[in-house]
């Protein structure tokens, strides 16, 4: 088999952080090549370098012997590299026909004929094997259909044996059955000679479909080998490093049984099939899982930001069949969303207004005193160590870490009994992180229960008393403090990837 796309010694740093370190991978004609790695291992960065989004610091790439210039999406496209981004790049409001033409072109140049476009669209859709109405808006399609549509668009101009199709986590939001349909399509494309490379988390399926896998760890390519004879267990060892032999988990009973603050019972919605969890007073509960495991939905469902399909939540002894954020807030449950810019901050507003949003009001009823509010805000900024005296400063001028601390201060001041935090340190530098953890630790010591949803295993291991690992929409594992201490991030990463405890002596409940 011929090498089509060859990457040699690709290195890419972001500041002091080396995202890719001398990575060499080749993609061969008619082969399906999986690129694997835990979060932050550099796999998406690698694809983005090839696609021309990032310019590597060093390294070479060539397509069928022709050198690929870095940083040029056009050149990559010209050389036959097709790229499907994680979000698929579809416009939901537009029709299938229009989406097929996005980024490429319509059949007609001067005159777009509905009939001709429709015929062509049907032809393309047939190629990828989906049966949808070409005039339907894309938002009506299922997730699988959307993914297939993105493939159809990438392959719109036909394909040859020199083409490479690269997919960045195309399976993240698909269920196992849906993944299979997509993989069949990829298989059939590869049989026709296309080289396929894709990033995925799904070990079982990857082993099934891929001819070869390359495993990235901390920016280095630690293996690039055939899948023949490769077991899931070995694959995990490659992904996580150091094979795990320690016995962990002594299953120590909690000393006292503290009060239950929040309980989810059989919560179901979207990719989350069933979530049961109990949060105790002063407990820090972590939620981990792959993209698509339901992890992303947990926080929004718990605070009622999105409606769930079935199940219930118990707050303060009251059972709720549905919730809205104003009700959860009334019950002293706070929400710190991952997306600060659009979901937690009032970007053009002052520090003061951002800080007091959850509990506006000063001593006197009927008169909101700005002077009191300023004094109070300064006090709270101090408590979370935001070194800024001017409370009238627009919050958008602060660093990400300081912004997050203001949001946390908002809820501490409000007197939250439960805080649900989604990726609390995303985009926050190291110093900012430790300050956030300090504030959270203070809150937890005061009895506040914390739920931290995170993709950062190190974060979960270092701050949580207990971590629930989600897999395929269910809680697959409940790792307690002892297990986390004994096994570190390796244990957690393993559990996240496979959904089962692998070492001996595990005493989880499942």
């Amino acid at each position, binding site marked *: 088999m011929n090498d089509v796309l060859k990457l040699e010694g690709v290195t890419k740093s972001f500041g002091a952080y080396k995202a890719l370190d001398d990575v060499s991978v080749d993609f061969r004609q008619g082969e399906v090549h999986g690129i694997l790695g835990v979060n932050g291992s550099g796999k998406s960065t690698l694809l983005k370098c090839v696609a021309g989004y990032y310019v590597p610091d060093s390294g070479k790439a060539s397509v069928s012997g022709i050198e690929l210039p870095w940083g040029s999406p056009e050149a990559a496209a010209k050389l036959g590299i097709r790229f499907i981004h994680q979000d698929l790049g579809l416009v939901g409001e537009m029709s299938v026909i229009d989406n097929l033409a996005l980024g490429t072109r319509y059949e007609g140049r001067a005159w777009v004929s509905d009939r001709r476009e429709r015929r062509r669209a049907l032809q393309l859709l047939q190629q990828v094997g989906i049966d949808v109405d070409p005039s339907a808006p894309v938002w009506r399609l299922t997730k699988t259909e959307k993914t297939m549509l993105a493939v159809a668009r990438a392959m719109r101009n036909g394909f040859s044996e020199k083409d490479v199709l690269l997919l960045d986590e195309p399976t993240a939001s698909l269920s196992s059955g849906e993944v299979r349909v997509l993989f069949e399509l990829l298989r059939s494309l590869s049989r026709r000679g296309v080289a396929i490379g894709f990033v995925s988390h799904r070990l079982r399926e990857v082993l099934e479909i891929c001819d070869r896998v390359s495993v990235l760890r901390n920016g280095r390519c630690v293996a690039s080998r055939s899948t023949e004879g490769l077991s899931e267990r070995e694959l995990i060892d490659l992904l996580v490093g150091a094979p795990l032999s320690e016995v962990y988990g002594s299953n120590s009973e909690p000393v006292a049984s503290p009060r239950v603050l929040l309980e989810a019972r059989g919560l179901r919605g979207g990719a989350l099939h069933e979530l049961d969890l109990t949060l105790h007073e002063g407990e820090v509960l972590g939620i981990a899982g792959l993209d698509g495991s339901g992890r992303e939905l947990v926080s929004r469902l718990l605070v009622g930001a999105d409606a769930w399909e079935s199940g219930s939540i118990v707050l303060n002894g009251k059972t709720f069949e549905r919730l809205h954020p104003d009700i959860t807030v009334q019950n002293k449950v706070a929400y710190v969303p991952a997306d600060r810019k659009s979901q937690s901050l009032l970007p053009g507003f002052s520090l003061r207004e951002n800080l007091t949003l959850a509990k506006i009001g000063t001593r006197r009823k009927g008169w*909101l005193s700005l002077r009191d509010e300023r004094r109070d805000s300064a006090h709270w900024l101090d408590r979370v160590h935001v070194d800024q005296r001017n409370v009238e400063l627009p919050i958008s001028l602060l660093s990400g870490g300081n912004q997050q601390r203001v949001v946390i201060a908002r809820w501490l001041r409000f007197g939250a009994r439960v805080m649900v935090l989604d990726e609390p340190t995303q985009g926050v530098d190291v110093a900012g992180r430790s300050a956030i953890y300090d504030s959270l630790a203070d809150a937890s010591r005061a009895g506040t229960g914390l739920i931290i949803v995170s993709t950062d295993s190190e974060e979960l291991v270092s701050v949580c008393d207990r971590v629930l690992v989600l897999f395929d929409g269910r809680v697959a594992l409940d790792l307690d403090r002892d297990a986390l201490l004994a096994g570190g991030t390796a244990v957690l990463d393993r559990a996240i990837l496979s959904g089962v405890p692998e070492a001996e002596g595990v005493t989880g409940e499942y």
Partner: protein
Amino acid sequence: MRWGAEKLELHRFSGLYILGLFILIFALWIPDTFLHVSTLRNIVTSQSITGVLAVGLVCAMAAGAFDLSFAQAAGTGSILAAILTTSFHMNVVLTVVIVIAYGAVVGLVNSLLVNWIGLSSIVTTLGTSSVLLAIDEKLTNENYIAGIPRSFVTAINGTILGIPEVFVIMVAVVLLGWYLLVHTPQGRRMYATGHASEAARLAGVRTSRSILYGFLASGLAAGVAGVMLLAVVGTGDPTAGPSYLLPVFAALFLGSTQVHPGRFNVWGTVIGIFLLGVGVQGLQLAGYSEQWISDLFNGVALLLATGFAVRNGTLSLRR
């Protein structure tokens, strides 16, 4: 400790300096006619209705409720008042109460359509505005309603201690609007809703309630303005309402460059109203009294003020 700048900073109160400049120019240009008590009274009276409507609109727009129906709501309100006082011979108090209640109903309907059905506020108020115009035209057959009782006109368009009564009403409405928006928690929640609706919702703010209060304020103000309109004009004019739409919006956006730049605010809007009022009145006294000159002045003033504010980054109205 120094808190944000609360002093008379140039850019936050530039409107006041320009207002002073206008007065100076007209005082030098046409001293005999401009420097007269009647001029002041004219400006104050003519801008009072605009002012009341603008305060209502500030509340709605603060909550992100884009209200295009307030002007026609005021116009139809004045027709309603005209009919109540002439055909039904109602007394002043009852008329005022009914027309203000009518304004509240307009606000309620707008907010129901936006909150329950989920229509955009622009589409909603465009629709209700047209419905209100239809009611106005049906009630009047597009004719003026004459014979408004003297008692009604003097009760509303009189003076208190030499101060025009409509101006007193405006001052009261302005103070109320400022209090509600700046010195109550609900006012802050309205601003949060208008600024970042999803973030406000996730912080526990009931955003639909903010929108309800915004439309309610705007509707109530339209009711009050309707009563004032009838008393000031003296006849029921079926076409009077829509002429307030542009000046009020102009004052609102001008106001958003003032006092608290980037935010629709009551005091900035008041500055905007009197800036436009003095300019137009001065030009009229100087002999430029055609309608097109006032409209041109309003339009150019709005574009200049917001244009400058957007350019130097104190305001973002782009999109």
